[in-house]
Structure formats: structure tokens, C-alpha cells
């Protein structure tokens, strides 16, 4: 029997990880319609809010955190929830489950493409701000970049959780909206959580995007409502929780 040493094993797992990631990038995320959708969606949202806010470049600073968050959230959830459900339906996902790759690594590989796609989406609003000559000098990029990555990760794992919970592609879309639209309203994207009715405010703090957007508000305009360290901690906890929940559901529902 072939016995793999530890380095061999790690090398093979890395190859498997990259194969899944590159296959997904080629098959889904780098397809021209998806790239254009990834550009179009943030462009339209940013343009819409920019016009509504009076078109002053100073307004971009208050719009950017919400725009970045919403672009990532919609980009990742739309793609991953649908592609995983589609592969599951076509039984292609079984091929992944049959591979000698630990389930956690397999799902991380599967979600990495969506995370990268989310990060790509996030920088479209920044590009628009750059074109509109927004002053980026006060931006704390050391906080913005990890915040973008964390928002992309948490949105992707939410999408994975959704994908595991449904069996049809159309259900993936409708179930995604069940989370996405309340988050647009409740997570302080375009107005502070403190302006929400009192009875809704506790709900905001149960949603991961509240913390991610708060980091962006702090890093872009200095108006975060919670300490950034607390926001980062909460984001990491949500990422862990969603990943573990999704894996548990996969074990329970897909490896029956």
C-alpha cells in the first residue's frame, strides 16, 4: 500500500486546493458575464446613491462603507450559493466528496473563489471614488483591507450555509434574499444603526455585516460606533460560526 509522508500529503492537498480554486475561477468567476456583473452591480448602486446624495465628492466618504459592504455581500452570496447548489444538483459535488481532501479544506477551496470575487467587487466603489477625485489620504488601509477580506469571508460562508440548506437553485436565490435584504436595512450601511427604531436595534448586532461595515465607517470617515478591535473579533467569531455550521450541515445532509 502507498504510504504518503507528511510533505507529500501537504503537497497533494495544496494541489487539490488549487485545482478546485482554479476550476471555479475558470468555470464561474472569470466568465465574462460574471465579471461584468461584478462591475455593474457596484457601479449601479454607487451611482444611484451618489446622485441621491447630491453628487458632492465629500458624500462619497459616507457612502463608501455601505457600497463596499453591499457589493461584497451580493457578489459572494449570488455566486456561491448558486454554484454549489447547481453542482450538488448535477451530482458534480459528489466528485469533490469522493476526493481524499478533508471536508474543511475542500469547503475552504470551494469558497476561496467566491471570497476573491467578493474582494474584487469591493474595490469597484473605491475605483469610482478615485475617479471622482475623492480624498483617500485619511483612509486607514490597514483596517480597510482586512475588513474587506473579512466581509468577503463572512458573506461567502453565509452563502455556503444557505447552499447547504436548500436543494434547488431558485431556493438558493430566494433564501439568500431572506438574509441579504434585512442586512441592507439593519446593518448601518447607509444610516447609523442608532437611527433604527429601538426594537430593531438588537437585531443589528446579531448580523455580521454590522461589524464589518462599522470597521469601514471607522477606517474611511472615523465614525465607527464600536471599537475596531471588537468589530474584528465579532467578524472572526461569525466567520468561525458560519463555517462550522455549514460543515456540520454538509456532514449531516450530504454525507448521509
Amino acid at each position, binding site marked *: 500500500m*502507498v504510504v504518503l509522508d507528511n510533505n507529500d500529503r501537504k503537497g497533494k492537498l495544496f494541489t487539490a486546493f488549487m485545482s478546485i480554486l482554479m*476550476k471555479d475561477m475558470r468555470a464561474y468567476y472569470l466568465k465574462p458575464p460574471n465579471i461584468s456583473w461584478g462591475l455593474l452591480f457596484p457601479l449601479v448602486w454607487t451611482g444611484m446613491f451618489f446622485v441621491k446624495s447630491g453628487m458632492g465628492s465629500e458624500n462619497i466618504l459616507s457612502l463608501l462603507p455601505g457600497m463596499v459592504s453591499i457589493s461584497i455581500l451580493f457578489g459572494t452570496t449570488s455566486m456561491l450559493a448558486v454554484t454549489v447548489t447547481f453542482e450538488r444538483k448535477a451530482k458534480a459535488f459528489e466528485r*469533490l466528496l469522493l476526493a*481524499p481532501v478533508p471536508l474543511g479544506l475542500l469547503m475552504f477551496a470551494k469558497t476561496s473563489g467566491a471570497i476573491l470575487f467578493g474582494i474584487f467587487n469591493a474595490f469597484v466603489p473605491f475605483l469610482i471614488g478615485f475617479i471622482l477625485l475623492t480624498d483617500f489620504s485619511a483612509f486607514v488601509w490597514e483596517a480597510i483591507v482586512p475588513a474587506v477580506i473579512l466581509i468577503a469571508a463572512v458573506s461567502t460562508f453565509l452563502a455556503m450555509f444557505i447552499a447547504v440548506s436548500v436543494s434547488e437553485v431558485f431556493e438558493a436565490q430566494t433564501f439568500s434574499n431572506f438574509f441579504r435584504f434585512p442586512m441592507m436595512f439593519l446593518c448601518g450601511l447607509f444610516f447609523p444603526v442608532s437611527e433604527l427604531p429601538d426594537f430593531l436595534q438588537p437585531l443589528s448586532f446579531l448580523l455580521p455585516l454590522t461589524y464589518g461595515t462599522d470597521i469601514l465607517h471607522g477606517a474611511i470617515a472615523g465614525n465607527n460606533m464600536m471599537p475596531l478591535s471588537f468589530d474584528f473579533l465579532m467578524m472572526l467569531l461569525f466567520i468561525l460560526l458560519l463555517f462550522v455550521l455549514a460543515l456540520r450541515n454538509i456532514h449531516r445532509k450530504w454525507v448521509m
Partner: protein
Amino acid sequence: MSEAHIRVSGLRKSFGDVTAVDGISFDVMDGELFGFLGPNGAGKTTTINMLTGLARPDAGTITVGGIDCTNKMKSAQHLIGVVPDESNLYPELTGYDNLCFCGGLYGMRSSERKGRAVELLELFGLAGVAERKFSGYSRGMKRRLTIAAGIMHSPPILFLDEPTTGIDVQSARLTREILQELHRSGTTIFLTTHYIEEAERMCDRIAFMVNGLVVRVDSVSNLVKPVEGREVVQASVLGTEVPDLEILGDLFPDYGIGRAADGGIRIESTGKIDVGVVVRVLEDQGFDVAEVKRTALSLEDVFIRITGLEAGVMNK
């Protein structure tokens, strides 16, 4: 064939109130071509899913290549290739890209998997459509590529679930030839099928599975031994009336008389059956004999005897 490559003991799986697999045990030896034979719904696919890691057993143990799959399934998956009953490759990728991707899942290096993909596309007669998307393949081509994907990483153990079901004759023949070649080269093959002739022609040993139970495991030669030299004559008559088996039994006390699947009579004997006498007796009783055929007993007859299932149930 020296040691057990796959060892299954007390394997059980239920879905709600339905027991799909009911405490089965068997061994598959190193280098053996092992057939798993049973009608649809017997529990074959559930068994193969448990052996390959797509389903969790409720009870029992599985050892593959010496690895206990109960807690080390991912380690065992290095050793196995799986060809499921439905093609499960990526419709939007080409045949070549699908194979390269499958190789990547098993950690094959880029140059290694490219070379192997070209080799397999040649072997399976798909070189001409290597750059065509999988969604554009015919059913037979899809099946062949799915088998190629299963052996992409040259696994020492190969599981195939109904590999020739629903495909054209040419693809089925090519598939059988390739399986025989893999068998000759020492690959352990676990083959589920409901084609009895296919199992009889290809397998070293066969397990009969019915209603979640393995009712018999033996070599093909041992299974057919009790019926070797026995002869069967089947006669069908015109009209709606059927011959009375009791009367025929009295007339031919040395023969075994029964009803054939088509409603005619089936006569079985350890010696030679005089067909002329049979026809005359039927005609004397007022029947118009439409057809009489003499056959040797086959594995299908053995299967029917052992399982108690009706003839033709495997084709349903």
C-alpha cells in the same frame, strides 16, 4: 489474490423506516473482480456509497486497503477510484479539463495529469472530442469519460456502479474490455450490475444482494456448478389456455416442471430431454405448440434459485 483488499462486516444502513442495507458482510480479495449483483432497490448503490465515503453506515465496519474507513475514510480515498451510476463531471468543462481537474483532486502534478489525460482520452476513444464541453457529449461518451475520470489517478481499487447501464453497445463493449484489462493489470474491481450475463462473463466472484441482504457470495464456477450439465426446455403454446403443470408432472416424473416467465412451460432435467415427446404430449392435450427452445442453465437460473426472485426481475 492473497489478502482482502476490501473487508465489510455487519454493515447496516437505514433511511427512516426503510432498511437499505441489513447487516451485510463480505471480503474482496486483492486483484479480484468482484461482482455485486441484485435487482434495482436491492441496496447496491447504498453499499457502494458507504464503501466510498458518500454515506455513513449506521453500524458495521469497512476496511479498504487495510485502512479502517470508520474513522479514516479520507486516507482510504487515496486508494480508490469511483465510477458512479450517473455521470458526475462538470458540464461546462471540456473532456480534457475534466480529467485534469480530477487528477488535481488526487494531488497529481500538472505535467503528470496532462499526460495521463491524453493517454486516457486515447484509450477510451475520446481523443477527437477532448476539447468539446462535457455537456456536448453523447450518453455513451459521458459514461466513458466518467470511467476515465475514475481511473485518472491509477487507483489500486476501483468501484463501478452499473457502468454499462443505458449506454450503446459499442461503449459497453469498450468499457468491458478496459475493465478486463485493468483486472489483468492487478486492479481490484468492485462492480455492481444488474446484468447477470455481464457479471458471469467478467467476475471472479459474485455476491447476490436482495432486499438489503447478501444472500450468497461465491466464485462464478462454484455458483454454476449445481446446474452444470442440466438442461432446460421451454415451450410456449398458442392461445390463452396454458398446459396443466400437474398433469405434465405426472407424465414426466423424472423432469422438473414449472412455469416459464412468458407463461409457457419450463422443463428441467439432469439428463437429455426428448423434445419430440414433449411436443407430442402437448399436442395430444390439444395445444398448438408455438415454440420450443433448449437451453443450458445459467447464472440467472442460479440467481433465481438462491434469491427466490422471479425470472426477469433483474431487467425491471
